[in-house]
Every structure is written in C-alpha cells, then in structure tokens.
C-alpha cells in the first residue's frame, strides 16, 4: 500500500521541481502567435490616409453581423481616404464578434486587420461597441503606399475632361 502511495506521489513530487506553466497574468502577458486573431485595427497608408474606403464588404462577410459601416463621400477639403468614399461610421460590436477574420479576408484595401490585443472586457454592454476612433491606428503609424487602383484615381484625366462644345 505504501508502495502504491509512493508511486502516486512520485508524479506529484516530480512536478514540484519543474518550471510552472502558469503565467502570472496580468503581471506577465502571454505572448501570442503571429497569426493570432485579436482586436481589430483600422490601418492607414504611410501618408496617413485611411485605408478603409467604406465599402462595407467586411460587414457583408461578417457571419455574426457585428460590423456597421456608414459610408460618406470624400470632398477635396475633407479627403479622408483615397477615392470618393470613406467610412463615416465604423463600429464593431465585440460581443457579437467571433474573431473569425472574414472581414480581413474581404477587405479590398487591407484596412481591417485582426491584431494581437485580446484584452476586451467591459462593464457595460454598450461599451462592447468599438467605434472608428477606437479602432483606427494613430496617424503616424501608417504603412505602405496606396496601390495604383486607388492612387490613380487622383491622376489627372488622360483625355481632356471637358471639350468645348
């Protein structure tokens, strides 16, 4: 009987002297994998223009109907993104989101990316709605140049746009 007891305790004692797997969260943060899907970020181009063009394809792809996009038109004085359209409202309901990443797949401009932030707790259900201001990266953290399909919209018309009648 003693023998059996010792046999069992051997496993226990064996573990006492190994490194514990527990991470002392929140003092210590567990690193995530490169392709981890955490909180969304709305990216910018290197020149600070928003990548999002307000096309709502992310909302269309979303299986949980977590995204709301209300588009608006860019004006010369208020050029938020390349092209004619930008997202005036961009909201994600984090209670609904299942972090599947379909929005990222659907995005034609790589504007929405599921990043590594995973601390998404709130006291109020209303706080679960992340607005565009919360999702958008700061202006100086843009990267990459606009692809020709977007930047060419700024190009001067190739034939004269107005011909005298």
């Amino acid at each position, binding site marked *: 009987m003693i023998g059996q007891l010792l046999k069992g305790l051997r496993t226990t004692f064996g573990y006492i002297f190994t490194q514990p797997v527990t991470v002392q969260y929140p003092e210590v943060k567990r690193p995530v994998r490169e392709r981890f899907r955490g909180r969304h970020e709305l990216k910018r181009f290197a020149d600070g223009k928003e990548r999002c063009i307000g*096309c*709502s394809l992310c909302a*269309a792809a979303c299986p949980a109907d977590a995204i709301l996009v209300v*588009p608006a038109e860019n004006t010369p004085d208020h050029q938020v993104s390349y*092209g004619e359209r930008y997202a005036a409202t961009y909201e994600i309901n984090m209670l609904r989101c299942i972090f599947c990443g379909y929005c990222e797949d659907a995005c034609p401009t790589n504007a929405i990316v599921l990043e590594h932030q995973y601390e998404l707790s709130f006291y109020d259900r209303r706080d679960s709605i992340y607005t565009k201001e919360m999702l958008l990266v700061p202006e100086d953290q843009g990267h990459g140049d606009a692809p020709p399909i977007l930047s*060419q*919209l700024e190009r001067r*018309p190739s034939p004269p*746009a107005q011909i005298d009648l």
Partner: protein
Amino acid sequence: MADVTITVNGVTFRVPAGTNVVDAARIGGISIPVFCYHPRMKPVGMCRMCLVQVGTPRLDPATRQPMLGEDGRPVIAMMPKLQTGCTTPVSEGMVINTESDEVQFAQKGVLEFLLTSHPLDCPVCDKGGECPLQNLTMAWGPGNSRFDYNDKVHFEKPVHLGDLILLDRERCILCSRCVRFQDELADDPVLGFDNRGRNWMIISKSDPPFDSKFSGNTTDICPVGALTSADFRFKARVWELSSKPVVCTLCPVGCNLSLDMRYDQLMRVMPRENGAVNDIWICDKGRFGHRFIEHESRLTTPLIRKGGHLVEASWDEALALVAEKLAAVQSSRGGSAIAGLASPRLSNEDLYLFQKLFREYFGSHNLDHTLGSAADVDYDEHGALMGVGKGTNLMEMGAGSLVLVIGADPEEEAPLYVLRLRAMLERGAKLVVANMRPTKLERSATTRLYYQPGSELAFVRGLLRAVFDRVGHERLHLKHSGLEQLRKTLSDLSVEQAAELCGVPAETIRAVAQALLEAKQGLIMYGAEARSAGPGMSESLAVLAALTGKVGKPGSGLIALLPGGNSRGALDMGVRPDARAGYAVLSQRGLGAREVWPALREGRVKAVWIAGLDPAAQLPAARAALEAADFVVVQELFLTETAKLADVVLPAASVAEREGTYTNAELRVQRSRQARQAHGEARPDWQIIQGVAQHLSELSVPVAVPTQRVEESSQPVGGKGKSKGPGKTTAVTVAEPSTWDYLTPSEIAAEIAERVPGYAGITYSALAATGQGGDWGRQTNEAIFYDGTNYENSEGIGIQLPNLIEGQKTAVSLGLRPLSKPAHERSLLLVSQSLAYDGDLLLRGSLLERQIPQPYVALSQTDADKLNIKPGDTVRLDSAAGELTLSARVVDDVPAGVALIPSNLPNFSAAAVQTGPRTRVNLVKVVTG
C-alpha cells in the same frame, strides 16, 4: 401575329413572329446576355453582348420552299458572321446557337473590351451588388484581363448631369439606355452623346441640366454604375437594404414604390413593377420626394397649448382634452359647431373614420378635404361615377383606343401619365390634347388643339353637339335622365357657334368627335385647368363619354387628375359636406371648408379639427378664422403654420409608418405597408381618430341619432340642381353604433368594404393578390434586363373599383348647365398652374426643394408688349378681391389674355386676388424708385 417555330440550342419551340432573338430565347428559358437592349425600348445593337449564331432554312430558288437535306430535314444556312440577337427578328425555321465556342469567344471578347475602360471600383460603386456588368462578367466574362491596369483611361469624376443625377464617365459603357429612355419614353431629349472614340461620352444638353421629371429612371436602367442618384450616393450597399412596399401619395397616379430601408432608415425609393399603374417607372417626385419621412422637423409628441405656448404632453392627456373640448362644444352648441378638414393624402381608412366620427358622434356634416380657398374647384364626382371601367389597363391599350386630354398638364399634375400615354401611342393609340396653352404632352399628341382661354366649356359643348348630330343617343346605354333637356341645350349651340366661341375650327371639332366615336376604347383625362372652368366641365365630359358609349367598359371612361394622392378616396369616403360615402347626397348639407372660415369668425362654428392640411399658410382668411376659433386640433407631420395656431397638436404617422389603402385616379385601390417604426410617439391617423372616439364614449356622449339618414336620396350628385330624375327617397339601414375598437386598419377596410358602395370585396387579403402568375415580377432571364432596377410586385397590385355607373344603380343626369357668358370687366384671366415641385410639405428635406420656383406671374409676349412689361419686372395684379405684387415672366407658352401663376408655392398665397377658380385681373407694372 402568327407564331413561328425556332430552334435555340437544339430546343425547338414556337414564339410570336416579329419577336427579336433575345426575347424569343427568353420565352424558351434561354438567357442571352445584353447591356444595351431593354424590352421597353427599341433595340439598337450597340453593346454587341448579345452576339449569337443565326441560321435560316435554305430556300430552293425555284420553289421558294425550304430545301431538304438527306435526312429529310431542312438545310440550314448559317449566317457567315455572328448576329446581334436584339436586332434580329425571328423567322420560320430559324436556328439559333447561343453556346457555341464562337459565341462564347465573342462574349468574352466583348466583356474584356468593356472592362479595359472600366475602373473596377466595385467596392465603392453604388451599383455594386446589383450590377449587370458584374453579373455578366461573372457568368460570361474572361477570368482575367490582358490589359495593363496602368493604361486605363481616366476621366474627371463625378460629373453632375443635373441636380439629381451624377455621371461617372469611367464606368459608362455607352449603351445609350439613358439617352434612349429620355428620347423615346420620356420625350425629354435632354441627354446626348458628345465626341467620339475614347472621348465619347454622355452629356446633358438642356438648361437647367437634365431637365426631366423622369431622370431617376435612368439610374435604374443603367447597366453599370455610371449614373447614380445624388439622393442615394454612398448611402449604403444594396445588399444591406430591405425593400418595403408602399404606395406613393404625392399624386393621383398611386405608383407602387419600394422604400429601401437599412434598419429603420430610408436609403432610397425604387419603383415596384405594376403594369396597371406605373409599369417599372416612377417620377422624380416619387423617387426623391420621400425625405420628409425622416425629416428632423417631424413632430414626435403631442403638444397642448398651455398659457399661450405649445408644450409636450402625453397621448392620453391630449386625446382626453380633445374629446372633452369637442364634447363641450357639442353639448352647448350642437354638433354643427364642429368642423373637420382632412387631407387628401390620408388613407381611405383614416378618411372613413374621420367622417364616421363626425357624422356618428357629432352629427356634423361640416367635413371637407380642401383648403377652402376661393380657388378651390367643386368636388369631382364624375371621375368616379363615370370613371374608367373595371379592368382598364393602360398597358394593354393601343391601336383602336383614343385618349382625349383636356385642360390638363399631366407632366406637372401626375407625371407618370406622360410615360403611360406615350407607351399607348407607341402601340398605336391616338392622343388628342386640347388645352388653352401648350404643354409638354402635346408634343406626342396625334392631334393638338388650343381653345381660347376660358372657352373650354364651349369647346366641349361643340364636341357634344357634333357627337349628337352624328349618332344622337343611340350609344347611350346607361340609365339616364334629362335627355330632352340635353337635346334642347345642345340645339342652342351649333358646332359652328361653338367653334367661334372657342377658336377651334368646326371641322377639327367634328374630326375629334368622329375619332372619339370610331375609337373602340376612349379615355377622357381632365386636370386642374379644366376643372377650374367650373362644375359644368366635368358634367359635360361625362355626358360626352356617355353619348359616345365610352363608359362602363374596360378601357373607357373619365380620368380626373385631382390634387393629392387620395382625393378620390376622400370623395369616395364622403369627406365632404354634401354627400356621404359612396356619393349619396345629403338633403341637408353641412359647411364646406370655404364656409367654415367665415363661420369660425362669426362664431357659428366653434371648434375645428384639421388633419394633414395647412390652410393657415395659404389663406389669410383661414389664419384669421383659426385665431378666432375656440378650439383647434391639428393632426400633422410637421409643426405647420396651422399647427402653430392649434390648441392641441397631434403627431401623425407618415405613409411609411403605417398601413393603409389609397384609391388612385383610375379607381384602383392599393395597399401600402409599414416600412419603419413610428417616428417618436407619432400614431397613424386612424388610431388618433379612434382614440378621440374612445375618450368621447368614456365621457358618455350620446351618439348623435342619424336622423338624416332616412331623408337620403340615392340620386347621384351629378344630377343636383337640375332634373329631378328618379329622385326616389330610399331609407338606408341604420347601422349599429360601432364600438371603435379596431385593432388594425384591415378591420376598418373590412367595414368600408361592407358599407361604402363600390368597395365591396376590397379587403386586405384580396388586395394582396398579385394577378396571374408569371405576369408580375422577374421571369426567366428578366433578371438580366432589370437587374437591380426595380422590384417585383409580390405584395399585391391592387383592385380596381367598379364605377358607380356600371352597377346601373344610379342614373346619369344628362341635363347640362347653361353656358354662361363670362364678364370681361378686367383684361386678363388669372389661371393657377399646378406644379409638380410645389410647396407640398411632403417635399420637405428632399433634393427637389431647390427646384421649387419663386412666385411669379407668367404672361404672353403680346400682353407683355401691350403693358410694356419686361421679364423680371415687378407687376401688380388687381382683381375684385384685392391686389398682389409679383415678379413677371414673359413666356412663349402662355396664350394672350392669360396670366398664369403657380399654385401652392411655399410662403406665397394668391388668395388676396382670387375670387374663384378663375379670376379676372388687371395687371400694372410697378415702377419703383
């Protein structure tokens, strides 16, 4: 036409001869992709997308018979090159191949070429998701392009074609659907092509740009995202929208609309296909004029006047106060001291309950649906009594039918009739337009006539005489009275005399009469300008229809263009002082709106309830009367001028927030559904009326005994004042006093069906019928023509009422009023012109507001020269009633002797000078400084 047998992709079937290959293949369930072809327009073969292989049987040159091959079947001679399906009519024995390698190669090539110039900005394009170019590229196009993206052509964009429509030249594939729509269907040839080659583009040729009442339809039929509406630009993606079926209440056509909502917000308005009403089109007023629904100035809570200010209150409080005050007036002064005015944009259910409350509870007949201005014309009965026969469908009418449009400007009063009448012309119908001034419709007319201003009645009498001379009364198959008198009246005025009076040659009058007699089907359409000639006008037109036998059968009858979306319903429901629902004349009439205002000032009427009308804005007399009134209830969408004078303001639900039925000019009852949640605390009008009734019964107000019911006569109103006719007095069964516990409008509709003559069988379930299967909505391949452009009608196409004459229960009175000689004490005849874009409250918040003109008076060049007036001068009009100062316009299309002023403009009222529907005025130039 006879059928022919064709073989498409090896399947043999029969199609009508003359059909083009695209339509023929569609009959057999085979899709041929198209961009430029549209079934409502002539084919042009511009886009080359419908290229197919076509072959016909080889004929023996000697016998002209098909040569037979060794297998006994005809030898097919294939055409050496591919043919465009839309421009190739089928012929007997034709063989068509739509799937061969050669065809597929061509289709891929066409799409690849189209896409070389296309910006591929689908993610931001408003058409994305319902775009035929997207769909056809997915189905028929190449997987990728060999074209270098950096070589794409770039244009400045967007280009404003007009206020409402924007053009993206990069997306345009130059199919010319928009140009052809404007040229062929709308007859507003304002679009055109400019330049050539890579610079080939659509331009607007008019000033102001894109000057058309139908411009929005071009965005529907555009097969790419080149034309987008300023109203919907970048508002939402189409897949986010849910389509809610409603009926347009902005004019008497009653177009079927789809309100496209995202959650609870209106994103855009689209047509819903209904061949009997609007086909697949709507006018710009319907498309852009529904922004009032979400306007920030909408009322959200009931308001009660406390200490001179309107303060917010609860519904209970407001309704109790209304009931209490009205009950107090009734008990002290009797029911006749209460008056009610209801707008002709309310639904039948609202109007029915409104008059029921007044008649049953208050015993008051002081009801009306007009403003009570001097310019109001008499109630139009003949449009219902002799209205178009049940089964009339303008879409099915063509050769053999004639439309007489008299004193109407459909483009302004009921725009969609322009498209409908033009489509009839295309099918071979005749159109006679008679007016005092040129209108846009007359450009399409087979015969156009101008009568002297003020002589329209003489013109119609001339027509009547010409008809009577030719056929007498042999075509008169209606129960009638007063034939002798008619004979006498007509013998007083020969066609030549009438011709002299109205300035239309006698031969022309005879020719029109002859054409009307020869036509198998005849419609007579009359509008505001004809009605302003006096009640004798509709009466004479009714007799004209009766004498020519154009009554009581499908495709024949009168169409009255009345103001508002549901004037016909208001008349049917009896919201008028002199008749009950179903045109049953009362022996003791109440006060109409025109008499209510003086009565209020004199204290004969103490309380007034106004639902959806704004008399204070238009009539100084009404404003004074409302200020003098003891108690005013206003039930409205907005805090109007009238509402500001009210003691209680009740917020009403708009057409989008409630269900209801509406009756259009062709007597078609259509059901509109709820599209969004109530705006604030606003309630549907019927609920408000019911709420007051319930509070009244709590106050245990005895229901007024309907004593007058026994005195009612079944004589139609048309006979009043003239022949006694079969003036038999019939007792109407007195219905049980109702308990006022309707849960839904369908219960009210059921009661209407029971009690209002003509409405039998019009229940909500019956209204949901969509006609024969397959005729409505998308069929095989139709998605390619219509993709994203309109919605199928799955919620009911409405039911046409029988006209009251059809039942033969009422007799038509043929007695006509004598022709009065107008007095000419002043030089000009002041005529009000209805405009589509006027001061209607419902246009609030829409893009059309910019197109509402400033007040003006339009004069002919002749008169302007005579009076030394130049365009822009300030002129003073004076009449027997008073004076008015306006800025003058000198225009070509006003005849001499007429001063034309637009009616119902915001912040403008012509009431100061108006003495009646038409006023004689003098005009003086005001010299300032």
